[in-house]
């Protein structure tokens, strides 16, 4: 019987940015696997590389070296059609700050139009949007102008806009950025319960623990390294001959 490959796998992945004349190593030969159905928390300070890791995982950015696999397939060797499908359907990267409705756009259209023309008529997209808005508790605001929403309502609509695509992997960047602690807790509980209900594999990155409570696997990120409660996830530990961030010659 063939073993099911992990939903997402990083194999010796490095990501380096150029900052002036220096190479900044954000991910340094990071390896880990995420299996379907497991809630994974990634804990890291600001500028620790959390967002970069999520963008690389979502296929939005390519790693400098190493391989990222989704369901066993190397993202770099995917056909353009499969890659587009992956980005539009299978994997969703969400930040509660991703709020960019057009002027005068209604809440329901902001959600529905995110489906684009990908296998969905506008009528069908609106039907799906209305259903998902009900799940995030925003039914009553569906026909209101999107610009009239509060920050907390915006976050719920951003979640609806992500879930309407029915992704199998949901990557969430810093869901803790809310005006009050109770609103943060409510939103995080909603996120967890909807992901569990819809059988979505949830990966949440945050500098706070609250959004990560209940995770099956917890990872910490910083200085290019990853440490995980899952023994399989590892990074190369041996001292390197060239220091990270060394000046380019």
């Amino acid at each position, binding site marked *: 019987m063939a073993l099911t490959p992990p939903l997402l796998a990083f194999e010796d992945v490095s990501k380096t940015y150029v900052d002036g004349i220096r190479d900044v190593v954000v991910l340094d030969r990071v390896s880990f696997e995420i299996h379907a159905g497991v809630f994974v928390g990634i*804990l890291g*300070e600001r500028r620790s590389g959390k967002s970069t890791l999520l963008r690389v995982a979502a296929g939005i950015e390519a790693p400098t070296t190493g391989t990222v696999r989704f369901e066993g397939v190397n993202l770099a060797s995917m056909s353009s059609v499969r890659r587009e499908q992956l980005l539009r359907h299978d994997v969703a990267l969400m930040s509660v700050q991703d709020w960019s409705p057009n002027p005068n756009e209604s809440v329901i259209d902001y959600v529905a139009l995110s489906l684009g023309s990908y296998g969905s008529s506008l009528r069908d997209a609106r039907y799906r949007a209305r259903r998902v808005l009900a799940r995030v508790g925003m039914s009553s605001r569906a026909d209101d102008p999107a610009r009239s929403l509060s920050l907390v309502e915006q976050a719920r609509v951003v979640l609806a806009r992500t879930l309407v695509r029915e992704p199998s992997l949901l990557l969430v960047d810093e869901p803790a950025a809310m005006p009050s602690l*109770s609103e943060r*807790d409510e939103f995080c*509980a909603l996120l967890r319960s909807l992901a569990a209900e819809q059988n979505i594999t949830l990966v949440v990155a945050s500098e*706070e*623990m609250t959004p*990560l*409570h*209940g*995770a099956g696997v*917890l*990872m*910490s990120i*910083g*200085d290019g*390294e990853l*440490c*995980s*409660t899952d023994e399989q996830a590892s990074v190369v*530990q*041996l*001292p*390197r*001959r*060239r*220091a*990270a961030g060394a000046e380019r010659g």
Partner: protein
Amino acid sequence: MGGAVEEMKWMRGPSASIRGALLGLVLERPGHSYDLGNRLVTRLGETWRISQPDVYRLLRQMEDSGVVQSSEEPKRAGLRGTHAVYFPTELTEDAVARWMETLVPMAPVRVGLQAKLAVARKQDAPRLLSALKQYERECLELLLSTPATPEGTPSWKALFMDCTREAVDGQLKQEIAWAKHTRKRIREYAAAE
């Protein structure tokens, strides 16, 4: 005056915080040592690493100081024998109030690793990197095991539990950051040599 000093003896030493918390739990509701130990872990999380024999020993010490008293009570229905149930005394409420006002002693959980770093040699670097990584993983596991605040109606109890959880989270996050930073320093130094 001498009496007051005697009464405060239970607050001295490295286990003062655990004793104070146990006292607060006895004041809240009497219990036997196993029950009090379980309630303590539920409130504080696993980071405190307190064993049942320790709970029993600390309760006995506090009984000697007169801030709790025990009474042999039958075990719950269906179980034979008796066990010591700890009750508050007339001193308990005042003792807890005084303990609330005292400064918290610093007690870093990484003391064992600091001792290793203090005497490490150059050839110990790979072992230290491995120990630091293991320590970081342990801290992550403790973060996962810290009980989340129960959802529902807001209450003072839930608020205080949440504040405790945030304190534990904060300490462990600091430990994780320290372990990562120390590993980075060791690796960079080794690479530059």
